[in-house]
């Protein structure tokens, strides 16, 4: 079986979705760790220095572009599979089992993924664009060269309740996407074993599904509350 044939099979495509998905899982950990510095009571010093480093380090810039390509790949292959899956049942059932045989979020990965994609586009246009191509105010710490004050832009954005709500909705979608997504990717890679299923379930549900999305969602909520 040639590589082209392998990755054109349903399982081959699923492996690509799973691999890109797990890569994105690793990204959200790093992204959350950096973003939590927004809540540090130092008037933005830690966050701005971190943002400037991430925005100008060559290796990280390379990974950041790779990340965008990975997101697109993940979405495109998943859409291909979804189209195929829908075509596999041209006549729908009149009565459906609801949540009796599967969880609703495991069936709605495409919907959650689409919400996330819209969220990512908005999120990037708000902050990533501002960082690279916008006109941020600059700020200088301890006599170092001035850097963009992204911290100020973030705090300004999260004054608006609807933007905060948008971010919370995005993170709810992330939560349900990852509660199913992490375990599903493991299963696709064949990781299913009595001894390890418990820990995979714990990581998928509690770390990726709850801890990380809640960690992200807390940031805009706290910034909004602090500015009331």
């Amino acid at each position, binding site marked *: 079986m040639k590589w082209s044939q*392998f990755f054109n099979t*349903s399982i081959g495509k699923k492996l690509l979705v799973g691999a890109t998905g797990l890569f994105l899982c690793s990204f959200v950990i790093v992204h959350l760790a950096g973003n939590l510095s927004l809540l540090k009571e130092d008037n933005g010093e830690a966050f701005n220095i971190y943002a400037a480093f991430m925005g100008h380090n060559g290796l990280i810039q390379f990974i950041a572009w790779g990340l965008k390509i990975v997101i697109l790949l993940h979405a495109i292959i998943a859409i291909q599979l979804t189209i195929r899956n829908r075509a*596999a*049942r041209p006549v729908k059932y009149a009565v459906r089992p609801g949540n009796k045989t599967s969880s609703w979020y495991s069936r709605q990965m495409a919907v959650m993924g689409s919400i996330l994609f819209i969220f990512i586009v908005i999120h990037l246009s708000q902050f990533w664009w501002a960082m690279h191509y916008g006109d941020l105010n600059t700020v200088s710490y301890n006599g170092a060269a001035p850097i963009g004050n992204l911290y100020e832009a973030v705090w300004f954005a999260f004054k608006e309740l609807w933007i905060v709500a948008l971010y919370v909705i995005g993170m709810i979608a992330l939560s349900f996407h990852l509660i199913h997504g992490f375990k599903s990717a493991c299963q696709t890679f064949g990781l*299913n074993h009595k001894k390890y299923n418990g820990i995979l379930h714990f990581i998928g549900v509690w770390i990726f599904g709850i801890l990380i999305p809640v960690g992200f969602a807390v940031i805009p909520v706290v910034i909004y509350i602090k500015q009331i």
Partner: protein
Amino acid sequence: MKLTLKIWRQQNNQAKGHFETFEVSDVSKDMSFLEMFDVLNERLINEGKEPIAFDHDCREGICGACSMYINGRAHGPWHETTTCQLHMRAYNDGDTIVVEPWRASAFPVIKDLTVDRSAFDRIIQAGGYISVNTGNAVDANAIPIDKTDADHAFAAAACIGCGACVAACKNSSAMLFTSAKVSQLALLPQGDPERKQRAMDMVAQMDKEGFGSCTNTGACEAECPKGISLANIARLNREFIAAGFSSEA
């Protein structure tokens, strides 16, 4: 018991189907679901109407022929039960029961509630066998087999190929079926020489038949009358990955 049945009627594969409503009375709680259909069909025949076509064979829960999608559930509401073993005590007087055929492009409707499941046969033909040379029968127990492997192979071999996994899956995926068939052979030494080619060929055939892909929702496992585990799907994934990465062709 008096029941209202809404049953999918379709003259043939080309015809447009529709639901037809039947009122049935004097349904005993001890009847199986198929026996209730037998009684209804007798009445239809006596009235000069066409009986409802449905698949059945052993009526012992082991052949996998009966294939009704009942009130949104493959083989009805009971856990690990085929339609023939579903009994009318599952229902109450006055209930409405909607009965549909398996829905999948790979399982075209033949008539009413019968569907063509020969796509499963073609998946088996693609590699779900072991090539045995002719000659004297080998002594039993000549090859030692690990007990755990034997148990897993046996559990996978319990698959009766009924298609409930496809019917229950939102993607009409045949992964549970294919994985059970790959697993039962991959776990045993007799299946070992052909295991890589088997995994690749059976997956290729499964895709060719137009089944959807697995999104790990677990609906198949929940509806399987033989309790085939999702662990088999993970095993098929491992078999397929190992085969695809190591094949030289």
